[in-house]
């Protein structure tokens, strides 16, 4: 089974819940996962299906009984695969939240002439009764049918608001969830949904997509990067370069410069790249080590590699200790190379450090003709940067760009852009590193 195509054990995946919220889970084999009010399921029951599959949790009586014993725990149900394409309402369901406002706007229609304040529905079922139903019922649809029965004014509603009501209720009581591949965009949207807007510097998927393209990110490049988002930007690069393939034949590398003592790439913990893979392809250096690296001599002062014979003669702990130090030593030398020798194939930056002092210095080791792309939450900081870069002949045509994606409601007959959407999304400054021609010699008088 290919973990890029199928749901496999041990993987991190992102679940789409009926509430339209997301949840990141690790699929521990033999474990179970609780989705709160939407029910629980066993991990093993979903393994082997294609990533992107939608499941519904259901409970039969047997389940119910076994679970009565443990009242505090969410009873674990069984799952069945849902064919979304045969259930067209599912399509609309996922968008219902954003439509709500919208549908209200149609309420001033002829047909609701005699209704006022349709919002206050007469709901004759108590929450207890609904909870009861939820425990007994086989599916969300049945709960909804019962609720309609008990809904005082349902048949007074216009067909339009009936539809709307049904959708809202369906969404609320459905126990469906979709298991998706945890792409970098999915991780971003998860963080945004959760309100971590500052942490991800207000990024949008479209800004990141444009950053990756403008920076010409390829599988075989060596990129210099500053990532103020705690690893999200690095994850975007990794996904574009390796597509989650941990057995990749590609040699691309990301050199991450960090402003604190230790790098913060915490978000990579959600990725499915193992530690060794990240060690091979992501190198971290602090700004201090990058801009003021130790000399090779200084490094060699602290440690001198021994000859093979000498190492051979060492024993047990001493030998292990030697290898640990040797590894550190090699890491230090490698770091010096990244700080002094490598010519980078691109510079991508997302940081809240002041850019006019940073970018020109970070660009020193960017190879000629290679892109420099800088993300910022604010256009004003890029504006300041652009004036600095204009005056520096090493930068060709700095441009501030903005890209915004505007989603639509796609119910046929009711097409329109969503009524509200997230503001923000940030800006990019992009340019190419170039090599100024030497000062031309003074014109010689022709003899």
């Amino acid at each position, binding site marked *: 089974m290919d973990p890029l195509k199928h749901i496999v054990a041990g993987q991190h995946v992102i679940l789409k819940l009926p509430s339209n919220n997301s949840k990141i889970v690790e699929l521990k084999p033999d474990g179970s996962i609780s989705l709160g009010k939407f029910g629980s399921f066993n991990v093993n029951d979903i393994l082997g299906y*294609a990533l992107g599959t939608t499941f519904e949790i259901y409970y039969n009586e047997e389940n119910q009984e076994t679970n009565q014993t443990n009242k505090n725990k969410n009873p674990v149900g069984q799952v069945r695969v849902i064919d979304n394409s045969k259930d067209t309402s599912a399509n609309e369901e996922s968008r219902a939240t954003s439509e709500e406002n919208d549908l209200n706007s149609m309420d001033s229609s002829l047909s609701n002439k005699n209704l006022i304040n349709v919002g206050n529905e007469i709901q004759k079922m108590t929450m207890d009764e609904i909870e009861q139903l939820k425990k007994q019922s086989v599916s969300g649809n049945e709960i909804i049918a019962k609720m309609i029965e008990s809904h005082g004014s349902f048949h007074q509603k216009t067909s339009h608001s009936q539809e709307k009501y049904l959708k809202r209720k369906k969404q609320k009581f459905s126990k469906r969830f979709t298991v998706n591949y945890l792409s970098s965009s999915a991780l971003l949207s998860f963080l945004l949904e959760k309100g971590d807007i500052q942490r991800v510097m207000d990024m949008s998927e479209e800004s990141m997509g444009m950053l990756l393209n403008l920076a010409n990110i390829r599988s075989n490049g060596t990129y210099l990067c500053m990532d103020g988002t705690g690893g999200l930007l690095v994850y975007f690069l990794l996904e574009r370069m390796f597509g989650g393939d941990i057995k990749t034949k590609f040699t691309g590398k990301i050199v991450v410069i960090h402003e604190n003592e230790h790098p913060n790439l915490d978000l990579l913990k959600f990725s499915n790249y193992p530690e060794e893979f990240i060690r091979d392809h992501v190198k971290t250096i602090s700004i201090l080590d990058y801009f003021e690296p130790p000399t090779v001599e200084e490094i060699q002062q602290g440690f001198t590699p021994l000859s093979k014979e000498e190492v051979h003669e060492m024993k047990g702990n001493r030998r292990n200790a030697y290898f640990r130090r040797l590894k550190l030593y090699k890491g230090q030398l490698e770091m010096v190379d990244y700080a002094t020798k490598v010519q980078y194939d691109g510079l991508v930056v997302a940081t809240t450090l002041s850019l006019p002092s940073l970018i020109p210095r970070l660009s020193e080791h960017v190879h000629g003709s290679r892109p420099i792309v800088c993300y910022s939450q604010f256009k004003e900081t890029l504006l300041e940067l652009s004036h600095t870069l204009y005056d520096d002949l090493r930068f060709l045509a700095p441009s501030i760009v*903005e890209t915004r994606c505007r989603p639509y409601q796609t119910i046929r007959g009711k097409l329109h852009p969503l009524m509200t959407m997230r503001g923000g999304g940030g800006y990019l400054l992009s340019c190419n590193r170039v090599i100024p021609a030497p000062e031309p010699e003074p014109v010689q008088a022709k003899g």
Partner: protein
Amino acid sequence: MTCFTEYKDLIQEGDLTLIWISRNNIRAVVMKAGENFNTRYGSFPHNDMIGKPYGSQIAIRTKGSNKFAFIHVLQPTPELWTLSLPHRTQIVYTPDSSYIIERMNCGPNARVIEAGTGSGSFSHAFARSAQKLFTYEFHQVRYEQALEEFKDHGILGDASKYGENVTITHRDVCENGFRIKQNDTTSFEFGEDEEIEAKINANVIFLDLPAPWDAIPNLNDVIASDEKVGLCCFSPCIEQVDKTLEALEKYGWTDVEMVEVQGKQYESRRQMVRTLDDALNRLKDIKSHKLEGVERRKRLLNETINESCGIDDGSVDDKRPSTGKTKFNPFGKGFRVKEGDKEFKWKDVTKVESEIKSHTSYLTFASKIVKKDRLA
């Protein structure tokens, strides 16, 4: 050639380069010793470029003047290539193409179908971020042009080498579908196990066709069956979207969402900081000069009256009251001030392009899982 697939250090003879003259003037030039790149400012010898690192600025003395002209020699990227093409709306520009690539999660596992090829500009971006690209063009001439170009750019091939991963097929996909068979007009190289038909197994589909709804039914033959497949239709008119939605539903595509992408570019500019106090002082200066002028005129009038008794007659002109020219000029009015002139204070401002691309196309996304059963 590997100009699109490998990072090159030095400009070499035979390289396809992009010569940057200005933002709106980027030219594709193949390096050939002894040849010149001609501009209105003069000729740049290729010999001055060959052997230099990519990104080098090249200077020449301009014809008949003592000034210098500059160009930059760049290595092509899909984005620079797009900019170098004559501006036509057929081109899928970077705000759209980059969003589509990100949204469909293109990367080394993507097996992409693109129909139609068009200018081939998006094909380059797909080729960079895919395992394989199968592109289809129904227009014979455009097919041949694109085929030639992909060959020249080193991206045509069966992906046995990094970046050589594009296959182009001459086809009307609406009428004749996407399957690639022996004897079709195609660059596809049939392997040993593909004697009859290419194994496409696409997991990313991009349809830039006037009637994508006619092509959608044909996709089942060529999409991967064991994984989620993503689809994007690119249509300028909303009515096309409507018909596409209908077809998507009919043919079992789900997760339908439609978006528009709007890209904007800003110019960085500076506006002079002109304070109220400076403006007030300027007016005071004018006023005092005026008063001075009035005084002088009075004086002069008196003098003239007095002198008219004497013999002085020619010198009056010299003493005519000057119009009290202002001396205090905090904003440099009257002569053109260069933006950013250090004599004045400036505020950084941004300005969007004077003409923006307000619409390209609607992007309709959908996905499909063909086989819903469980793998053992």
